[in-house]
């Protein structure tokens, strides 16, 4: 059992936006992959990274994120699958003791978190978020300090939900504890204090609600009311999916606690993060974007400008771009080339076109490595 059942092979950076000391670092470890199966882990990691990159708002924050893969080879393949939960009885020897059926629940797939932390502390202590991919096609996973999930269809959603908890401090937005049809008691009405988490509240008052700046004056507050607190509110969304308000039913209670949008990944898997969760992710990752404005100019309607930036000593650039100073304004821009000289100096060209009918002020922005 445990660390005797395999070995740590090493760490590889698979998304590189700069030094770990400057970026937000996600670390993904393998569990239940034999050494000969590590190539499969590499492609499973790449698949998760593609999913994450396609998930707003990580797509727009990608320049602030690094991803590292820690290859850990296990003696055997898969995860323990006890017959007590109706499993196959498989009992493989794996490095992190991955097992289904924790707490007697088949889908509760967990690993030995202490062992995972020991490996991360030794291999990649700059980790902000840790995930473990378990080499099993059976659906399962869990959260806590480390997000664990299998290879089954949709299981990577577990990683995205858990990242909401662990990395961004989100509460659960679902309006039950065990489930809407569970007959649960003690979850009828929240009467507690205001939760410190940013995405649930006991306060549906328009004047004091903590996300009131995103609530339109046309949106009723509360936005939905559960008429029968003995169960989950069966009504559909009376607003558009994007409408921010105070929807009754959240934080494990049918009534008395509110969520910001009708749906969110923190309420049910396979939904986007709501606007409040997305805002917190943006705020949390802002320090890792490390972009700078180099200059500002105005371009008239229908004009094209070509600029160059020069450095005596080229600092290394992730990107150079153009950002209109006025929200909603649009410009076309391109970086047609750069020239790096033997003495270390460099030139970088930018072409900016304004296809609109009014002049637009814009900033050059960049991100040094």
């Amino acid at each position, binding site marked *: 059992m445990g660390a005797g059942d395999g070995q740590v092979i090493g760490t590889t950076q698979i998304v590189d936006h700069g030094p*770990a*000391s*400057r970026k937000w670092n996600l670390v993904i470890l393998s569990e239940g992959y034999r050494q000969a199966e590590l190539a499969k882990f590499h492609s499973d990691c790449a698949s998760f990274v593609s999913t994450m990159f396609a998930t707003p708002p990580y797509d727009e924050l990608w320049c602030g994120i690094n991803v590292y893969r820690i290859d850990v080879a296990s003696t055997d393949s898969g995860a323990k699958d006890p017959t007590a939960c109706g499993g196959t009885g498989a009992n493989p020897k794996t490095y992190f003791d991955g097992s289904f059926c924790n*707490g007697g*629940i088949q*889908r*509760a797939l*967990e690993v030995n*978190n*202490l062992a995972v*932390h020991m490996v991360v*502390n030794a291999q990649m*202590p*700059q980790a*902000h978020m840790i995930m473990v991919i378990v080499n099993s096609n059976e*659906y399962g996973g*869990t*959260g*806590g*300090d480390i997000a664990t999930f299998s290879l*089954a269809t*949709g*299981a990577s*959603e*577990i990683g995205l*939900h858990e990242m909401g908890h*662990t990395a961004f*401090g989100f*509460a*659960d937005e*679902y309006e*039950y*504890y*065990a*489930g*809407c049809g569970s007959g649960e008691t003690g979850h009828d009405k*929240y*009467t*507690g*204090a*205001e*939760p*410190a*988490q940013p995405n649930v509240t006991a306060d549906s008052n328009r004047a004091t609600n903590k996300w009131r700046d995103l609530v339109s004056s046309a949106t009723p507050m509360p936005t939905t009311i559960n008429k029968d607190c003995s169960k989950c509110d069966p009504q559909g969304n009376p607003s558009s999916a994007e409408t921010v308000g105070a929807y009754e039913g959240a934080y*494990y209670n049918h009534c008395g606690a509110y969520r910001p949008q009708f749906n969110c990944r923190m309420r*049910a*898997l396979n939904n986007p993060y709501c606007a409040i969760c997305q805002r917190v992710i943006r705020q949390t990752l802002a*320090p890792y974007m*490390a972009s700078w404005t*180099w*200059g500002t100019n105005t371009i008239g309607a229908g004009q094209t400008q*070509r*600029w*160059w930036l*020069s450095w*005596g*000593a080229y*600092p290394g650039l992730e990107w150079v771009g153009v950002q209109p100073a006025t929200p909603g304004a649009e410009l076309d821009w391109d970086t047609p080339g750069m020239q790096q000289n033997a003495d270390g100096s460099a030139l970088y060209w930018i072409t900016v076109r304004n296809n609109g009918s009014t002049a637009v002020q814009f900033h*050059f922005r960049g991100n*040094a490595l």
Partner: protein
Amino acid sequence: MPQVAQPPQVRPYNGALRLTFQYEGSNVKLVSKQKVEMILPPTQALTGNENQTGFWFMLSNAQGTPVYRRALHNPIAYDREIFSNNPEHPSVQRVPVAQPKGTFILLVPDVQEAKTIQLFSHPLNPAGRGLAASEFARFDITSEPDKGEKK
């Protein structure tokens, strides 16, 4: 209209401490402390959350003045979150854990004035959610791990 850019400023890295804790019930031990070079998110409001529920940690100086605070999802798990891809089950739900036990990490800024880390939570059992958080553990981060608990 060529322009010569100013060389970009270099953003200094921040030092951090990676603190590893182990817990059994509400008994928490600081088991390791590592210095790392990484940027941490900025502090959240240092005051104004006295009557709130949830989990947060606070870093304070020798005079007890707070210098850094972050609210987190409670890393001490008195219940586990389970998931399903079967449409007959909720995609996510919770079940109580019989014997809460585990490991968690807190990342705190490695600033000279920091002396103490305090952990705040509502009563840790699921029924305690909703009650105002209070301090339940405190560690001297300038001392060696596993000796730091004062309470």
